[in-house]
């Protein structure tokens, strides 16, 4: 018990002292995950909209596929990407393995199905009259799409936050394609795993606290935002 107490005190000291290594890990984690979500979200939202509003061949199959991929373990995505990016793989010449770019690609692949599935549910729950009203009032289709996005913004924000939550905390894919290299590809989850395996709990706890604070802040932000919406309706 006293070990945990000591480790926790050391963890807060690490965070508050501005330890360069720990803040570098935090910074890399956020930069990789935010990049992945920023790249994946626009395409996922457009695809989700088409799946919800238009009929086309293989539509149902695509929805089933994305729902299935939502639960694929991160390590499986990591393994697939590793095989593709490794020197003998088809994309080996790109020399992306063990770089932050590979981690971003991995996290895009991880978050994309979740973003599509959740945004699809949000668009499906949208009132079809919103789209028709925007069009009949003279909006071009892309403008009507933005109007519709605004109407279902709570569902879409929840989708983006869930996607971010999945990738910021995943370890399997980042470990396999990033390699957990200090000052290059070490992010919060891989650092926690490494430090814990070495018996160095302070850094692990410090990084865990950062993830916990981030999670609490996101949830509080969403609740506040949704609360404002409920008041107005």
């Amino acid at each position, binding site marked *: 018990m006293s070990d945990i107490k000591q480790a926790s005190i050391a963890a807060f000291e690490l965070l508050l002292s501005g330890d360069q290594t720990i803040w570098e890990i935090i910074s890399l984690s956020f930069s990789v995950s935010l990049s992945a979500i920023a790249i994946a979200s626009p395409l996922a939202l457009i695809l989700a909209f088409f799946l919800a509003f238009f009929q086309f061949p293989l539509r149902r199959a695509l929805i089933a596929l994305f729902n299935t991929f939502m639960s694929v373990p991160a390590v499986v995505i990591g393994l697939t990407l590793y095989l593709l990016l490794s020197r003998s793989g088809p994309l080996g010449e790109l020399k992306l393995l063990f770089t932050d770019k590979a981690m971003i690609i991995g996290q895009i692949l991880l978050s994309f199905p979740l973003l599509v599935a959740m945004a699809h549910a949000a668009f499906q729950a949208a*009132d079809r009259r919103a789209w028709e*009203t925007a069009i009949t*009032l*003279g909006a071009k289709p892309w403008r009507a799409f933005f*109007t519709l996005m605004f*109407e279902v913004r709570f569902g879409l924000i929840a989708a983006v936050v869930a996607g971010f939550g999945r990738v910021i905390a995943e370890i399997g894919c980042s470990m396999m394609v990033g390699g957990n290299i200090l000052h290059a590809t070490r992010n919060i989850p891989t650092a926690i795993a490494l430090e814990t395996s070495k018996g160095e709990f302070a850094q692990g706890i410090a990084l865990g606290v950062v993830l916990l604070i981030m999670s609490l802040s996101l949830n509080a932000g969403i609740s506040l935002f949704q609360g404002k919406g409920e008041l*107005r309706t």
Partner: protein
Amino acid sequence: MSGLIDYQGIKISLSGKLILDIDHLAVKAHQCTLVTGQNGSGKTTLFKIMSGLLRPDSIQVDYQGLQMSWKQAKPLLQRDIIYLHQQPYLFDASVADNVAYGLYRRGESKNSVQKKVCQALDWANLSHLAQRHAKQLSGGEKQRVALTRARILAPSLLLLDEPTASMDNEAKQQTAHLLQRLKEEGVCVVISSHESHTVDHLADHHLCIEHGKITVIEPVKKSAKVAVLNHAKNTL
């Protein structure tokens, strides 16, 4: 009275069932047409096709002196014709923002939009609701805001799907009054209704749809309009 738009050979099937099969439908300028028919007869489907929102299996459109296919007509129909749902959809914004929506889509300046929105709300006696959130309005208020939002764009044709359905008598009266004023302004209106007496007196023509086909097209006699108007006054 000159023709505004002609639709020919309207056909649409859903799940293999023929929903609409209309040989010819002409809408005359500055006229009010009443479309009646039972629920499921195809009124809403017809309105959505007429306004370019729903693609039919086949159609020919004669508009602005040109014979057009669906592909050519669709952008013009969406630009010039406004369709109002039975329960109009108001965006998650204030009443003023809702009324301004179409004007901004036309690229009008903020000053011009604000001026027009004030005038339009004043016209509909809705100025007191300008800053109210649209989702908080009653059914009758929503219908009047939607009518104002449509009128501000000066459409060639206004399609109103059951505009007084599920309203109390006072809201029906207020909506009918706005429709009367739209008609007096020369706005071409097509109204679907299965409730007689509320909007019948506005109609110049009556058109009946049964099982996706137009069965009756007739001008409404003045004497009949007066009788309906008197009945409406007594009811309200």
